[in-house]
């Protein structure tokens, strides 16, 4: 069963320079209990998708077309009041740079209790505290650190506390926006393991957004590669990583060193991502692609199946 489906999602931001088409015609599905990764470079629309699902786009952001179907209900048509009931109780978010997402003047415990107070009026103070301590233990922080302030925590601990906070109202879907960015590699590994364990234990569905392909390869069942507000390739993560079918994915994978294969110089992708104020016609990767032809300019960017459970938008399949 699909817990979440994005159908033809279009999101734009109003800016001084004009309309920024951050996300265009994105289709995604997430099965219950699975982890979906969204990868891409800065400004490709990853975080925009993450924010539009729980309805947290900033004031200048607007969804102009498409559907976000969560458990069979279209979230776009919901009012702010209705969304408040879904947010955190059903869909929670681990924020980008969670390390700075705590109020420095309040104890960690109090801040984790807060969502419960906001959403669960019946819960007693004692119950909320117990649940917080239990979750802190679960993410590997001693329960008695409940009364500590954020500055008394290390970066990794704050990230763990943030994860605990996202689980506090027993959500079904967790959206993690760059959950391990800005942590060192050892801590990254620990946090990833933690995320995997928690997903199993609470049968969570999860969307992980990252620019770091190795993180996604480690965690995700499915992966989507985004570029210029569009999805270029999508599929079961092993298939996408082993056998990339879009030149962009291929180049992205080549820009990371491989620890198993031969020593090779990693290659960057020359050029810059396209302006999203005037998105190019056809394939957004055209400008930087080495395999481009004139046909690419008129390509409609429909995903087509290259092998079972593996889709690519490249015209040369």
């Amino acid at each position, binding site marked *: 069963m699909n817990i979440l489906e994005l159908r033809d999602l279009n999101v734009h931001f109003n800016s001084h320079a004009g309309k920024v088409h951050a996300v265009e015609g994105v289709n995604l599905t997430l099965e219950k209990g699975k982890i979906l990764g969204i990868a891409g470079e800065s400004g490709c629309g990853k975080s925009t998708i993450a924010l539009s699902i729980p309805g947290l786009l900033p004031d200048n952001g607007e969804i102009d077309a498409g559907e976000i179907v969560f458990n069979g209900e279209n979230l776009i048509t919901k009012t702010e009041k209705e969304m408040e009931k879904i947010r955190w109780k059903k869909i929670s978010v681990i*924020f980008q740079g969670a390390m700075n*997402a705590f*109020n*420095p003047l309040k104890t960690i415990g109090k801040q984790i209790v807060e969502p419960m107070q906001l959403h669960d009026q019946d819960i007693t103070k004692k119950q909320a505290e117990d649940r917080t301590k239990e979750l802190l233990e679960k993410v590997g922080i001693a329960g008695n650190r409940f009364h500590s302030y954020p500055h008394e925590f290390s970066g990794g601990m704050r990230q763990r506390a943030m994860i605990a906070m996202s689980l506090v109202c027993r959500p079904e879907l967790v959206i993690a926006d760059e959950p391990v960015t800005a942590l060192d590699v050892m801590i990254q590994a620990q946090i990833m393991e933690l995320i995997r364990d928690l997903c199993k234990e609470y049968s969570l569905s999860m969307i992980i957004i990252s620019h770091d392909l190795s993180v996604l390869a480690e965690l995700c069942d499915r992966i989507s590669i985004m570029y210029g507000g569009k999805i270029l390739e999508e599929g079961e993560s092993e298939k996408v990583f082993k056998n990339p079918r879009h030149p962009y994915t291929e180049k992205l994978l080549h820009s990371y060193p491989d620890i198993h294969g031969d020593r090779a110089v990693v290659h960057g992708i020359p050029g810059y991502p396209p302006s999203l104020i005037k998105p190019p016609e056809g394939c957004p990767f055209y400008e930087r692609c080495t395999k481009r032809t004139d046909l690419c300019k008129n390509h409609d960017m429909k995903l087509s199946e290259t092998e079972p459970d593996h889709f690519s938008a490249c015209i040369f399949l």
Partner: protein
Amino acid sequence: MKRKVVIRERINKIKDSETLGMVWTDRLGRAGIIMLGAIMVIAVFGPVIFPFNAADIGKTAEDIFSPPSVNHWLGTDEIGRDVFRSLLSGARISLIVGLSATLISISIGSIIGLVSGYYSGIGSMLLMRVTDFFLALPVLPLIIVLASIFGQSIGITIMVIGLTSWPSTARIVRSQVISIRERQYIERIRSLGAGDFRIIVFHIFPNVMPLIYANTVLVIAGSILSEATLAFLGLGDPVKVSWGTMLHYAFVSGAAGRKAWWYLLPPGIGILFVVLSFTLIGHTLDKILNPRLREY
């Protein structure tokens, strides 16, 4: 013996409480605290031990403008009342007016600062224009006009001072709120589903609290001065004698011409000390709370 220990513990507790303890470690701040403490004690207990009766006037000609003596420690005024006693009760009035006016001023300033800083829009802009209007207004003439319209009573004085001295607080609080409302944790709390009221009261307000503290202390000093100015100009409450009122009567009764220094000096020195003590504490608080002013 036991009592001494308890008192010592209390003092240690005050020293340990973070902000006050830090003020205490600063030499100027410590001077301010000691001065203020002494004045507080005088204002609270002075009139109890040496009650002042405005009707207790002199009976003979010698009682008028008599210099300091055993009976009248600071001499007498133009109708033979004891200057020392009226000085003590004047301390009380001056402090009451200063503190109450500050309470009004800081409340208005903080609320306007919080609201106009948190929201951005026409309402917020209007609030700021109103603030600018009050900021640009020449306050003293305004206070004089208001006080003369609404009459001479201690309540009116408090209201008038409180209602005219809030704009700088509003400005300072607002600029800090604007910076805090963009922090990530505020965004996070909003996405948790917290309403504006909760965000402002539980998350932004504690973050601007130190600023409000430091500002409060300075506003108190200003309010006491304003009260003294008003009273000196004859717009104070004639029944509740404050230091400003004393100076007013000293001035109109020609105390200066009669060389009655015991009548003119004490209220002036009182005002000086109160304002100085609050300014010293405020300055020290500012130094502590604003890292850029910190000396290493």
